[in-house]
């Protein structure tokens, strides 16, 4: 067995791993062709070792991170002993290493001495993944086959070339083939860039020392996490968070986390959550595990390396047949947003007694709208556009107020809404207003961040179609430790004829006419600590800024 490298080499390699993951992300951002990736950064990169353990990740989308090792493992399971140099694998199916269908994942193996050493994992949310509705989210779905094309681990490429027959088949199953192909190339490019960097590193250091370094890096992160957890009070607590509905008949879908903290270990049991539902708010198991890991990551110090070691103190349990561990075949597309956000919130609530200075007010909930139509300026060319503007607010916390328009628990400031000018130039949309929403923040000793107001006019060539997919018009982001909940979302549709109605969070087949205005009021973040504790000058400052 190779001895663990000296502390210096270890630090060098830890930096190298993180650096190459960041570089891959930058490449993907700059080369992708769909708005959801190149403007809103809905992608993540992970480096896993040959045992599918998470070695390094970067500041991308937290809900992806804890789930990506499942993708690496699924490839190894599907191709036992048959992963070869020059191969490239692809998957999206939630029961085969994915979380939900819109997230395509490329797994690129890296070899040294003809032995598998690492897997570069690139996960990116697609603008469209086929299925019954445009944009990947089908709020009417009651089974996964209505949500898009299912892809188990497949060998997408061999001998450093992508298989054009497979690419063509996949592209044919999506609505905007051009975006699909451009994004897939960008993902593959990023994965290969990472593989090149790793091959160089393997050449310099040798495979065995690198494996020993990985073991040591993971062990140090584990020890770091356990030291922090060990300082919290022991006990058992239950936290709850509630979804508005499942998009069908059911309202108030409860996520219940029973959290036991003993010594330096934590067990989260989600078995008492609501039974599996008819709609797409069910969660796949990788996604549920990832959500629980995300909650832990937020409560630890930011400096803890978020790798396999850091998550070892955490055990996640759930009964199959619940909304957090749906049986194969269930509709699950909303899960990376909901119930991910509620799982995090329930766990943070449960642990707020043990670690009050670490628990933060709730971050916003996701309420997306996907619009498809033709652009009159580009000969009616078809587009799919996803709403990322009017981001909700982040939660208040022990050190201060929340971050306005920074988004939801599952992204934590990692999704960008992108440029209004660019959106207007690329899509037939007019942003009449896009500003902070006064009064939306949850009150508290430290208030939440503000949500936003958006008035978006549709200027398509003829009627356009829209879906909504989200939650949080009944329940706002939770206040913590006496803080108040943030205001919930309120979205409405103002018709060109002057009529108006509120939008539900899960609607399919909405027909929009040119001149219609989508009026969005997004939720604020939850407050932290009792409002009576808030400093008067902080209240005065909000009032002076027109935000009270």
């Amino acid at each position: 067995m190779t001895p663990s490298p000296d502390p210096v080499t270890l630090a060098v390699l830890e930096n190298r791993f993180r650096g190459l993951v960041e570089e891959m992300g930058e490449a993907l951002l700059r080369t992708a062709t769909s708005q959801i990736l190149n403007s809103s950064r809905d992608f993540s990169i992970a480096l896993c070792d040959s045992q599918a353990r998470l070695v390094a990740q970067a500041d991308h989308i937290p809900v992806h991170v804890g789930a990506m090792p499942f993708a690496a493992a699924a490839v190894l399971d599907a191709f036992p002993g048959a992963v070869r140099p020059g191969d490239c694998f692809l998957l999206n199916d939630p029961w085969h290493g994915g979380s939900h269908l819109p997230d395509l994942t490329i797994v690129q193996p890296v070899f040294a001495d003809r032995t598998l050493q690492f897997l570069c994992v690139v996960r990116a949310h697609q603008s469209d993944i086929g299925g019954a509705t445009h944009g990947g989210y089908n709020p009417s779905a009651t089974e996964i086959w209505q949500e898009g094309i299912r892809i188990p681990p497949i060998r997408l490429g061999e001998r450093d070339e992508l298989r054009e027959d497979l690419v063509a088949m996949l592209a044919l199953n999506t609505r905007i083939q051009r975006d699909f192909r451009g994004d897939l190339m960008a993902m593959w490019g990023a994965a290969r860039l990472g593989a090149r960097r790793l091959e160089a590193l393997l050449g310099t250091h040798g495979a065995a020392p690198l494996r020993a370094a990985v073991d040591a890096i993971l062990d140090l992160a584990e020890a770091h996490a356990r030291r922090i957890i060990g300082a919290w009070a022991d006990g058992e607590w239950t936290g709850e968070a509630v979804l508005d509905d499942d998009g069908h008949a059911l309202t108030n879908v409860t996520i219940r986390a029973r959290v036991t903290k003993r010594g330096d270990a934590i067990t989260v049991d989600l078995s008492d959550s609501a039974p599996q539902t008819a709609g797409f708010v069910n969660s796949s198991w990788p996604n549920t595990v990832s959500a629980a890991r995300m909650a832990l990551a937020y409560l630890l110090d930011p400096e803890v390396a978020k790798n396999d070691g850091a998550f070892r103190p955490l055990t996640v349990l759930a009964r199959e047949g619940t909304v957090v561990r749906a049986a194969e075949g269930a509709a699950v597309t909303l899960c990376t947003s909901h119930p991910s956000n509620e799982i995090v919130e329930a766990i943070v609530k449960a642990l707020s007694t043990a670690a009050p200075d670490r628990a933060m007010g709730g971050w916003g909930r996701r309420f997306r709208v996907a619009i498809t139509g033709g652009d009159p300026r580009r000969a009616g060319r078809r587009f799919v556009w996803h709403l990322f503007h009017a981001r909700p607010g982040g939660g208040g916390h022990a050190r201060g107020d929340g971050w306005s328009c920074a988004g939801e628990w599952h992204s934590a400031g990692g999704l960008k809404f992108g440029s209004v000018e660019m959106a207007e130039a690329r899509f037939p949309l007019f942003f009449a207003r896009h500003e902070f929403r006064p009064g939306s923040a949850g009150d508290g000793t430290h208030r939440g961040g503000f949500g936003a107001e958006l008035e978006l006019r549709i200027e398509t060539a003829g009627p356009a179609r829209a879906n909504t997919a989200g939650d949080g018009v009944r329940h706002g982001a939770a206040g913590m430790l006496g803080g108040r909940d943030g205001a919930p979302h309120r979205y409405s549709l103002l018709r060109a004829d002057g009529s108006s109605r509120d939008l539900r969070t899960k609607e399919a087949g909405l027909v929009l006419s040119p001149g219609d205005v989508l009026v969005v009021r997004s939720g604020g973040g939850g407050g932290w600590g009792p409002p009576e504790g808030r400093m008067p000058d902080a209240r005065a400052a909000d009032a002076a800024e027109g935000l009270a």
Partner: protein
Amino acid sequence: MHGPYRIGVDVGGTFTDVVCLGADGSTALAKAATTPDDQSRGVLDGLATLAADLGVTLAALLTNTERLVHGTTVATNALLERRTARVGMLTTEGHRDVVEMREGLKPERYDLRLSPPPPLVPRRLRLPLRERLGAGGEVAVPLDEASLQAAIEALRDADVEAVAICLLHAWRDPSHERTAAEAIRHALPGVYVTLSSDVLPQIKEYERFSTTVVNGAVGPIVGGYLGRLETRLREAGFHGPLFVILSHGGVAPVAEAARLAAGTALSGPAGGVAAGLALARAGLGEDLVTFDVGGTSTDVALIERGEAALGRGRVVGGERIALESLDIVTLGAGGGSIAHLGAGGMMRVGPRSAGAVPGPACYGGGGWEPAVTDANLVLGYLDPDRFLGGRRRLDLGAAQAAVDRLATLLGIGRLDCAAGIHALANVAMADGIRLATVRRGVDPRGFTLLAFGGAAGLHASAVARDLGMRRIAVPLLAAGLSAWGMLQTDLRYEVSRSLVGVEGMPGEPALRGIFAELETAARRRLAEWMPGDPAIRRSADMRYGEQVFEIGVPLDAVDWGGADLPSRLAEAFHRRHEALFTYAMHGEEVVLVTARVAAVGRLPGSPAPAPPDREAAAPLGPRRAVIDGRELALPVHGFERLMPDQRVAGPAIVESDTTTVLLLPGDLARLDARGWLEVELPA
């Protein structure tokens, strides 16, 4: 030395360096303490010291000075310390939170207990104008006079020093911004007015607005400072042109620097890059990594095929400045960086620095934590009696005690710990170089590491080894190289045009027309600054049809005389895309977004300060030092006492009053007659 003189002035954190070039090609360096409250005093002090060294009066020096080039950190410091001007903003109604929303992106993904930074311009001073352009530049809502008047009254009440005018789509049509600017200049004379369509005429409002607000926030400060400096210089007898080095590495007259003050944010470290470019031209080689190591930070930049890389993603003090700027990577790693045990149980070096006060433990100023300089002293790389030419005695005992504290925590010995600190500093520096090279898709192995600033010489060989670089150069004037570099800088004026409303690649005649038009404009502007025939540099920002980020593609290698120019430009883009991102999409449409032409006026340069021609001197020393865990007796050579072409084999030390170069075993150094020590590393 005799005049007429040319003078470069580099204001650093601690010292203001003044380098003077005489008409006979000789060089003089003077230093004065930096005066942070008003840097112009320190500049005049430095000039006075220089005059005294040359044995002339300040007036005699300055009246005989034909050009003065200045690098300033005024804008940088104002942003980092948040001492900016009171700035108001006029913006499109319904969109006044663009700069505070930051596109929804928050740094530090896993720090949910991080609060947002206060915006440079508070919301109450972000005032709405009722007006709106569409994405095609067409007027959707005409500019409403009443909203303009109301905003002006609010700005008057707030007593603002600057106004940033930032309207949606103004890059397509600046007329609303210009109308508003005229009204403000009329109503509020003396207030600094800046327009987004003027500062950064390109799409993406967050970048454009943020840059314009930064420009407003530092404009009055930079303008005021440069005005005071110019006045002091005039009073002292200087009548030549005063130029300021900008973030993109070119120099501009004072009025231009004040107009685009946000463009001076990297004025400080830009001189080092300019020096690298000059040395590249002088024969050092055209692929260099500049490596400027000071007390608290290290600045790294890339010079590729004789050109410095430029980028537009700069953030200073948390504020986005999307102006073209040298791609300088600044790291919190220098001689003063402190080594400690990180929260995760890992040994860490930096980013905290001992600074000038208390300084490293060995300075004896009360520092007790081990800094990189302490480790270097413990390892024997520095001589406690010869630091800064013996002007500062170093306390070896204090350095050892500081290193021992950390060694105990780690359970290792003193020398292992010191070697670890030295090595981790090397790692941080190497990572900085990787950011500047590898992360840009450039393999540093064929590059020469140009090491300068006080502390680079001790780390250069190890850093180069880590990166697989084979060649290092350390100039004789290492400690004042940035100021010298400013005198080697070209005058550069770039004009660009975004091809609005064009889909794809323009046709042959249109393409040639655009570049010809830009060239005429660039030549005309440069001719206002200096006579002569400038060099012309062409480039274009291009992307594939559906991408939204362009990549800058240099076009000087394209044959402009040949037929089918559009295909040649597309081919240059495909190649660049493949080099950066591993693939190209040859069937995909290529879009030319922005055409750029720069007119570059070459100022007469000067050779690097060369060593005097004389007899070889015997090595000093030896000095006992630890390399790779072994204690060796290293010969010490005086840098200024080496003869041209004299060779020194590592392990050895080459030392001047202001810099020390550590040669590792296998290194072979040779003093180049053109003024630098050139080190070949073993394969």
